[in-house]
């Protein structure tokens, strides 16, 4: 790929003049912060996005990849972060979908199954071609995606953040499969922002920053901190200072919480007991989809548990409306677009949500005191360093980091004792993540009770004072992060130990 430019309308420069060369049979990593252009570059290579300028050469010939099917024809495959599988289909059905070889319109199932199983065995993937995809774990589904690409006879495989959803053990397993692919002469492009992984697996590494290529280096000649420096443009400290652990009174107490799925009657929450005290950060680890989401929803009040009690500040909130609970709980939801922000309203209107329920934001019987609202909104933007032009601007023009700062500013200024954080740094660049981590610590040190749910184990290990691990809706173990290592936590997440 030579001199690739991409400008998204209206004027977002995603890539400016990026060169990338891939050699046959190598594992090449592309690293960079969120928004550095990794995904855009890969989407261009896979034909999903049209470059604004630039050329792509394959085996010395100039090619024009304008659709994913063209890319497939050329032997380029991609495994996306979100899997593109039909959950109700079996493994082999998913693999052949779109590439069915038919005789008079019929698929020879027996033959196809054998073919698919052959690929699975050849590369050492441990999955059953007859299993239904919805029954498989995330890691297994990812393998199905890779097999799907191999069935299409690809030579170049792009893996977009494949380890983001995996536990450490599963990642190790994935790396072995990737190395197997390499041994068989396939070329792999590996996208990630976890630097130790990148260093472990790749032959060469290309670093992108703000849409520009910084360098391509041999992975054996470089260290993690040098890479990080290249990515961010300045040296990063991974050190966080906390006051000594000295928790006070209990703020959140969850007792005996049960919830069954209405459709499948599977237990989503099974006898969950959690307590969080003032001045501590309690983390919840677990493979995604093991009840963390339901737990958060039950605390906020968007779903009703079947059984159990939730107490905040010793007040039973189990039957309270969301409105009443929000007078006690600060809450940062996991999805900015879905629930945390109204992207097309103004920043002002976004900042005063929930605050508007407070008496001192009201004027007369019905009105909002807009003067007061404006004043406190601009205080929030100053205190939380939100980069913006004016309060009338829409959050959708802000960067992801600044959007999240708007959410965090709003919630942290509510001043309630309990702070509920659901994936507070997902999808943020390193600088914003660091900033938000600092704020979380600050809140802990000012004696707030913090419940932190995250898919990022490193984040949990770094921030939490105590850690619960959830699996299948149950709290399986209660750990202290300073006394265990990441791998032990990973084992609990997977259910390898009890």
């Amino acid at each position: 790929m030579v001199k690739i430019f991409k400008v998204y309308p209206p004027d977002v420069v995603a890539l400016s003049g990026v060169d990338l060369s891939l050699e046959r049979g190598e594992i090449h990593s592309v690293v960079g912060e969120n928004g550095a252009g990794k995904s855009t570059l890969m989407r261009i290579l896979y034909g999903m996005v049209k470059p604004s300028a630039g050329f792509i050469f394959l085996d010395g010939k100039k090619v024009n990849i304008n659709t994913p099917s063209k890319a497939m024809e050329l032997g380029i495959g991609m495994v996306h972060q979100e899997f593109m599988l039909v959950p109700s289909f079996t493994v082999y059905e998913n693999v052949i979908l779109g590439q069915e070889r038919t005789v008079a319109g019929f698929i020879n199932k027996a033959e196809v199954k054998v073919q698919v199983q052959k690929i699975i065995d050849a590369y050492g993937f441990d999955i059953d071609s007859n299993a239904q995809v919805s029954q498989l774990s995330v890691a297994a589904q990812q393998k199905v995606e890779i097999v799907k690409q191999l069935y299409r006879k690809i030579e170049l495989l792009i893996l977009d953040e494949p380890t983001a959803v995996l536990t450490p053990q599963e990642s190790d397993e994935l790396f072995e499969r990737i190395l197997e692919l390499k041994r068989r002469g396939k070329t792999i492009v590996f996208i990630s922002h976890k630097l130790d992984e990148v260093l472990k697996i790749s032959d060469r590494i290309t670093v992108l920053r703000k849409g520009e290529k910084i360098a391509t280096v041999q992975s054996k000649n470089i260290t993690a901190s040098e890479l990080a420096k290249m990515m961010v443009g300045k040296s990063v400290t991974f050190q966080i200072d906390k006051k000594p652990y000295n928790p006070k009174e209990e703020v959140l107490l969850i007792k005996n919480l049960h919830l069954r799925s209405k459709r499948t009657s599977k237990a989503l929450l099974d006898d969950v007991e959690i307590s969080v005290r003032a001045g501590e950060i309690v983390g919840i680890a677990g493979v995604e989809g093991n009840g963390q989401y339901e737990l958060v929803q039950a605390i906020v009040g968007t779903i009703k548990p079947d059984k159990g009690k939730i107490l905040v500040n010793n007040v039973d909130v189990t039957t309270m409306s969301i409105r009443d609970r929000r007078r006690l709980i600060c809450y940062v939801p996991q999805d900015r677009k879905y629930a945390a922000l109204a992207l097309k309203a103004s920043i002002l209107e976004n900042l005063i949500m929930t605050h508007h329920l407070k008496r001192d934001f009201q004027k007369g019987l019905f009105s909002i005191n807009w003067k007061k609202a404006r004043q406190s909104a601009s205080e929030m933007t100053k205190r939380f360093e939100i980069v913006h032009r004016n309060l009338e601007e829409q959050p959708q023009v802000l960067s992801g980091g600044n959007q999240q700062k708007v959410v965090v500013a709003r919630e942290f200024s509510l001043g309630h004792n309990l702070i509920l954080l659901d994936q507070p740094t997902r999808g943020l660049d390193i600088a914003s993540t660091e900033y938000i981590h600092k704020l979380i610590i600050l809140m802990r040190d000012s004696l707030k009770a913090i419940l932190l749910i995250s898919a990022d184990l490193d984040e949990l290990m770094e921030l939490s004072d105590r850690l619960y691990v959830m699996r299948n809706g149950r709290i399986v173990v209660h750990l202290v992060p300073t006394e265990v290592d990441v791998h032990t936590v990973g084992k609990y997440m997977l259910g390898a130990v009890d």
Partner: protein
Amino acid sequence: MSSVFIKMQRNSPLEVYKALYDYGLGSWYSFSSSLNAATPLILTGVSAAIAFASGVVNLGQHGQLLMGAIVTAILGVYLDTWRWVGIPLLAVTGGVAGALWAGIVAAMRRFYRMDEFISTLMMNFVAEYFTIYLVTYPFLDKKAYVPATKLIKRLYFMPDINGLSVAFLVALVVAAFCHWYMRTTKRGYEFRMMGYNVNFAKIGGCSIESNVTLVLLYTGFLSGLAGSLLILGGTQHRFMKGIGANFGWDGVMIAIIANNSVIETILYALFFGILKNGGIGMEFETSVPSEFIVFLQAVIVLTVVATRSAIEFYGQRIKSLVKLRKVVTKG
């Protein structure tokens, strides 16, 4: 573009536009009639704009207007009180009738989770035929040529100032109130946030269900008031079959062109009032039928909406190309 069509029908576009202008704006008389014509449009438009801006798909303006009109028309015949008590009382009752009609939908949504999109739409038909039944049988004025109720008492006719009906002023004041309400009050803020992102509002602590009910009642009231003012302020002072005309749907259309902003809705309603009134004059002067106005409206709607998105689309496109050039030459 509409000139082309006028030409095709062998009429002079210039003459047509002149007639439109003369009868729509040209004199105080035509101007005030235009404002009178805009009165129901302002209210149904604001009703739709508020509903849409709150993320509530109330398409029942037509039915709510009819219910408001019929209640006012019937009460206006029988109610016996002083003039200055009667007129506001009738207007408010009409509004309440519209609100209750929308309230049925609100109840169905609240208790049976029925989508207001379909139920408001269906309630239009119910209202249409229910009112026709009422004017054809129980409340028929035997002396009238078409199915209609009796004239309401003369003392309840809304006064006018030099031809400009007080009904217009009422509509304007109510619309101004709506603007203030949506912009300043706590409920108005919650309504708008619901329209932007209902999950955001829900998590933020707004009670979605009661707000939706309120929006339906509120916008139902506005449409009902529109019907009420048609009876009190219009020219017929009785409920005749077809009185609702297209006011409900025009209101929805105006709200869409105005991007659900209350102020813009008022302005577009005035503009459409001028077109409507001018269209009648145009029919006198030229051989172009007043139906042509409907066509003209459609052209305007399409043009405004298309231009808006085209400007945005191509504007961004050009911006991105300029930026690309800058980036490429820099490197």
